[in-house]
């Protein structure tokens, strides 16, 4: 089943021609409206008219997260604020987040793309969708929501958290579809077990999971626990949000990237060299249709591999494997992206604290658990030397992490010079 059969099954020749036409249009537009692009093209001595084929795309400079934070908040917007109807944000590499605007048309495009994803998963207007992706600045919740409304399905906008209540609603409201992070799905399954709820008797039949890497084993566990087909969705706010790519029903074998709206390249993250399709590398995306903030050659940091073999579902769009690795030090904690540099910025802001820390990520049951170890500085200890004061510092760190980054770490104060020896700022004990 297709939401937009014409475009989803466009012969590759026509798809390529459409990509080139849209690319040339967007280049003209950003060159004349966004100072950043004019400067970066001029520096690279490229004019939009130099891009005569899709192969010429590699002449354009990349956009990185650093560019996003250098142009914070609205420097990369290509339309006046009066045309923006929505703002979302995600983690930046420093204390600053990255901000993404949407015009009315962008929200339409995005909803259409998510609608394609839902239809690809066999979802129709007769389905009830339990949407446990977080609503808010994170694009997951609202992205799925708008897509679901687009196909006239019924949405339960439950958002994240509160597993017991989620399970009551899953049992009583009878949703047929669940959307959330894979780790949250496992958490719900475990919680159901302790509450002695029989998930098999629920009406769920399909799950759409994303926002964090998950293994084949996790998928099997989820499918077995809920008695559903579990499918993978991929997206990033920089490009649009969820709906950049979606797994079809043809055999759990990769997610179609909606190429009429995005161009995907794979690069060697060290050299920036474009790799042949099918080779593992960092995915780079170019937005073809986004009005508010069209990013050209955005380095996603996600390491994956493209699948070029034709898919029996009928979609002609290229597929990507799950992105299980990163090219940078970004951590995904229960679907929330954070960078060690952000943690460092928070610690520096707390008076008297030196940013000597280590992040330890592990699983606590199905969910991710983050421990932040911080060395007790001379300043803090000589000022107080009391348990109460040290606990206050711990609480402050937890609160700032929650407020700024949306993750709740367990903070552990440790003695001086204990972490330096350990070296790594991050220890990830999870096995994906």
């Amino acid at each position, binding site marked *: 089943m297709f939401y937009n059969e014409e475009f989803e099954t466009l012969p590759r020749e026509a798809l390529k021609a459409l990509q080139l036409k849209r690319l040339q249009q967007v280049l003209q537009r950003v060159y004349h409206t966004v100072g950043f692009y004019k400067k970066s093209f001029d520096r690279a001595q490229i004019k939009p008219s130099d891009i005569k084929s899709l192969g010429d795309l590699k002449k354009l400079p990349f956009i990185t997260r650093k560019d996003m934070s250098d142009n914070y908040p609205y420097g990369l917007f290509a339309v006046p604020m009066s045309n923006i109807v929505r703002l979302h944000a995600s983690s930046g590499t420093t204390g600053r987040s990255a901000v993404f605007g949407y015009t009315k048309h962008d929200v339409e495009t995005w909803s259409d793309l998510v609608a394609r994803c839902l239809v690809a998963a066999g979802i129709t207007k007769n389905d009830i969708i339990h949407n446990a992706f977080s609503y808010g600045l994170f694009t997951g919740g609202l992205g799925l929501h708008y897509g679901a409304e687009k196909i006239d399905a019924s949405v339960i906008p439950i958002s994240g958290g509160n597993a017991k209540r989620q399970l009551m609603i899953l049992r009583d409201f009878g949703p047929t579809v669940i959307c959330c992070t894979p780790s949250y799905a496992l958490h719900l399954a475990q919680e159901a077990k302790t509450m002695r709820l029989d998930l098999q008797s629920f009406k769920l039949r399909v799950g759409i999971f994303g926002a964090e890497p998950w293994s084949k084993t996790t998928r099997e566990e989820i499918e077995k626990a809920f008695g559903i087909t579990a499918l993978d969705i991929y997206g990033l706010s920089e490009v649009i949000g969820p709906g950049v790519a979606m797994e079809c029903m043809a055999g759990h074998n990769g997610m179609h990237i909606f190429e009429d709206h995005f161009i995907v390249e794979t690069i060697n993250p060290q050299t920036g060299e474009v790799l042949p399709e099918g080779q593992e590398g960092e995915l780079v995306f170019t937005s073809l249709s986004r009005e508010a903030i069209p990013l050209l050659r955005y380095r996603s940091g996600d390491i994956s591999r493209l699948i070029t073999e034709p898919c029996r579902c009928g979609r002609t769009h290229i597929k990507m494997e799950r992105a299980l690795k990163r090219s940078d030090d970004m951590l995904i904690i229960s679907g929330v992206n954070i960078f060690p540099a952000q943690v460092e910025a928070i610690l520096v802001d707390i008076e008297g604290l030196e940013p000597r820390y280590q992040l330890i990520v592990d699983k606590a049951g199905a969910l991710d658990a983050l421990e932040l170890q911080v060395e007790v500085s001379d300043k803090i*200890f000589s000022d107080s030397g009391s348990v109460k004061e040290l*606990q206050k510092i711990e609480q402050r760190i937890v609160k700032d992490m929650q407020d700024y980054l949306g993750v709740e770490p367990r903070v552990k104060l440790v003695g001086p010079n204990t972490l330096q020896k350990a070296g790594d700022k991050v220890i990830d004990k999870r096995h994906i």
Partner: protein
Amino acid sequence: MQVEQISIFLENKPGTLQQATRVLKDANINIRTLSVAETADFGILRLIVNDVEKANKVLKDSGFQVSKTPVVAVEVPDRPGGLHSVMEAVSKEGINVEYLYAFVEKSGENAVILFRFDNPEKAIDILTKNNFTVVPGKKLYEF
């Protein structure tokens, strides 16, 4: 009139306390009294020693996080009501005790209680006025 206490940050893991006591032993430092405050993750070892400066130095040199904290030492008769009489005097004036610990003098007649007050100057003033014996640091280190 205040007494200097050595406070040592200790991670809650096997061996850390032993490392601290070894450093003190090797430096020939005598512990008059001590107490430990602990949370799930860390503890603070509080010590009254015979040589504050030396203890501070050797512990720091060995990589411990150490601070000197002023506390107030009060001598009371070692019998029922000894501590209560002090508490009565300070609480009447609205002074809070953050923590306290005690030891009995060698003669066995008196106990010395170490207080961390939220307002030590005022506490000393009140205790002196009420004829309590506030023990100066110098005397305590040499007990």
